[in-house]
């Protein structure tokens, strides 16, 4: 079981969904905080969902306030970076570039992509954490990287 978990995790890294920041987070996990990473993840997804909502609304309005969009995206990028969500982060960067260029269509497109990545990551992580919990917390916490 643990091996399975390890494999899943490894694949997440390999596929670029997560980067070493995620590993840093894992290092912070220990007996006193056995579910730290999962908690942070949950928090991230909750908060980012809110951001996505805001952006969605802003885009729907059709007014394209690039500054505001950029600002939202900056936040999004910040959180995504902190958790190590590299694909999501990449989309954020792209989005911001489109914002700066004033390219509304590019923004829309990228945003769709971003939502997709975000959702994919969420599912994968949920799955991962579920397994990890079943396998036993030690596995994820102490594994040396």
């Amino acid at each position: 079981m643990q091996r399975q978990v390890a494999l899943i995790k490894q694949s997440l890294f390999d596929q670029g969904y997560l980067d070493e920041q995620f590993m840093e987070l894992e290092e912070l996990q220990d007996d006193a905080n056995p579910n730290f990473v999962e908690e942070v993840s949950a928090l991230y997804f909750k908060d980012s969902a809110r951001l996505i909502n805001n952006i969605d609304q802003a885009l729907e309005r059709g007014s394209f306030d690039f500054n505001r969009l950029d600002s939202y995206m900056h936040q999004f990028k910040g959180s995504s970076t902190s958790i190590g969500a590299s694909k999501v982060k990449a989309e954020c960067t792209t989005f911001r570039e489109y914002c700066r260029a004033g390219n509304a269509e590019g923004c829309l497109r990228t945003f769709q992509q971003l939502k997709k990545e975000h959702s994919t990551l969420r599912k994968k992580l949920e799955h991962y954490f579920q397994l990890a919990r079943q396998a036993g917390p030690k596995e994820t916490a102490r594994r040396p990287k």
Partner: protein
Amino acid sequence: MMNPSHGRGLGSAGGSSSGRNQGGGETVVEMFPSGLRVLVVDDDPTCLMILERMLRTCLYEVTKCNRAEMALSLLRKNKHGFDIVISDVHMPDMDGFKLLEHVGLEMDLPVIMMSADDSKSVVLKGVTHGAVDYLIKPVRMEALKNIWQHVVRKRRSEWSVPEHSGSIEETGERQQQQHRGGGGGAAVSGGEDAVDDNSSSVNEGNNWRSSSRKRKDEEGEEQGDDKDEDASNLKKPRVVWSVELHQQFVAAVNQLGVEKAVPKKILELMNVPGLTRENVASHLQKYRIYLRRLGGVSQHQGNLNNSFMTGQDASFGPLSTLNGFDLQALAVTGQLPAQSLAQLQAGLGRPAMVSKSGLPVSSIVDERSIFSFDNTKTRFGEGLGHHGQQPQQQPQMNLLHGVPTGLQQQLPMGNRMSIQQQIAAVRAGHSVQNNGMLMPLAGQQSLPRGPPPMLTSSQSSIRQPMLSNRIPERSGFSGRNNIPESSRVLPTGYTNLTTQHSSSAMAYNNFQPELPVNSFPLASAPGLSVPVRKATSYQEEVNSSEAGFTTPSYDMFTTRQNDWDLRNIGIAFDSHQDAESAAFSASEAYSSSSMSRNNTTVAATEHGRNHQQPPPGMVPHHQGYADGNSGSVRVKSERVAADTAAMAFHEQYSNQEDLMSALLKQEGIAPVDGEFDFDAYSIDNIPV
């Protein structure tokens, strides 16, 4: 070798996980100065959570905050409750840099900025605003592990230790290191490698820890006793930036051009034996920040102010700003002659200033402005007199500064009458005093302003922090002014203030003009025209009655609050508010300074409290010794105490404050929030 697995950042000296939080406690402890109290501010909950976890892993004590305003109020309420602040740059309710400024000015704590944005311009902004470091997100453990070095460094630099590389430089280096995610300890020259970091950190950590611990402990004690800022703990020779010294400094800077002034050249120009480049560098940093705040100087100068403030004691910083602020107001309103301003300043009795390190607040800020302020104060003082206290004031004024108190007499009570006239009078009479005076006025003005928020209520405490910080500076300055040679520099600023005062005075009626009066010896509570009514009582009671200053609710203060960047305010002061705020700040500052200065004064303070309005700033300050705010001021004051002249000033100042408070109170001017945005100091407006 260090555990590779932990190399990433845990830096456990010992084994793996154990090192971190369980059994390895000891090992870890040896590595970090555990218990460091960190305040983290970030609107991103994810980041906040991660940071908190990381910091706790470093055995730091962490307080989270997701709003800048909340962070500020936390800091203000508990001034010495934190050792370092880490803040995100991009936040919805307040710009991270603004928070940085506030913290630097009011609390003088090291602030680390962080952001996912790593563009050079933003990083540079961090540097120029005085951040001690800039971390790029995602923040890693290694980076956080060593943040204690900033705390230590800051304390050391306040001691004017000739350690090389001013904070700015180190910050720059550090940033680079941080960017690499390595951030080795300061002492570590390069150990980017995790392993190196660990090993060097261990060594350094040990050394540092013991010393920093020692310092921290000492500080803790000190703080408990006299709220003395680090200075007392470190027991290193401190460079006291006396009025003269500061004037020399300013002259050198002006000669070189503010933008171009570099510590080395300044040092050469000043030609003061025993002064190190380090001292000048840190002083310059603060000065720049101060200027920046006053006159919207370019950002890079901002740091100066912050550091400047710091050097003096957080309280000073704000004070100076205040002074500047007030001065501006005055200048604007009535074109206080520089002289009078100076006088005012002197009169203001910058006790705080003096204590701090003799840093002439005024000098920093804008000497001219200070002077102007003084003038205004002087005038105000006169104005106050008319409340009946004037006579008192006058005598006091004379006392303090030895400057001809002609001003006092001249100042019509509360008239808004041409402030200029008053200023002229003041100017003529007092050169030095202005500085001192100003402060008090400023402080007072804001204080009395309205409901005695300042007084004991927490509101005032909020304000006060601002003021106190500011005032101390001013006070310091004034103190210096009292000394005959004090720099009259301010005249320009003073003038402005005067102007301002006149307008505000209108509003306040007699209150504001008093500010200028402040330049007169504290006793006379020059600017305290406002407090005049109360002045009598105040004077007796509280030396530190900076409150007197607060009375004049200078609009300046208000303005200040609204906008950190006073630049515009200075000019636009037409509202009393500014003056008030300035006054407020001043009074606050003064109060603080006074407070610190006289422990005994505390009793007086109590009195002040009764007055309630009076130096809201004051009282709270006094009371506030407990809180951090006063603390800084106090510290300054104490320093001042050492200085006889300062003492004298202090006395005077107190009176002034009382007056101010009284005035303000009468005026019913609500002291503006401590935030001194007012760039009273903008010298630009002050015609010297």
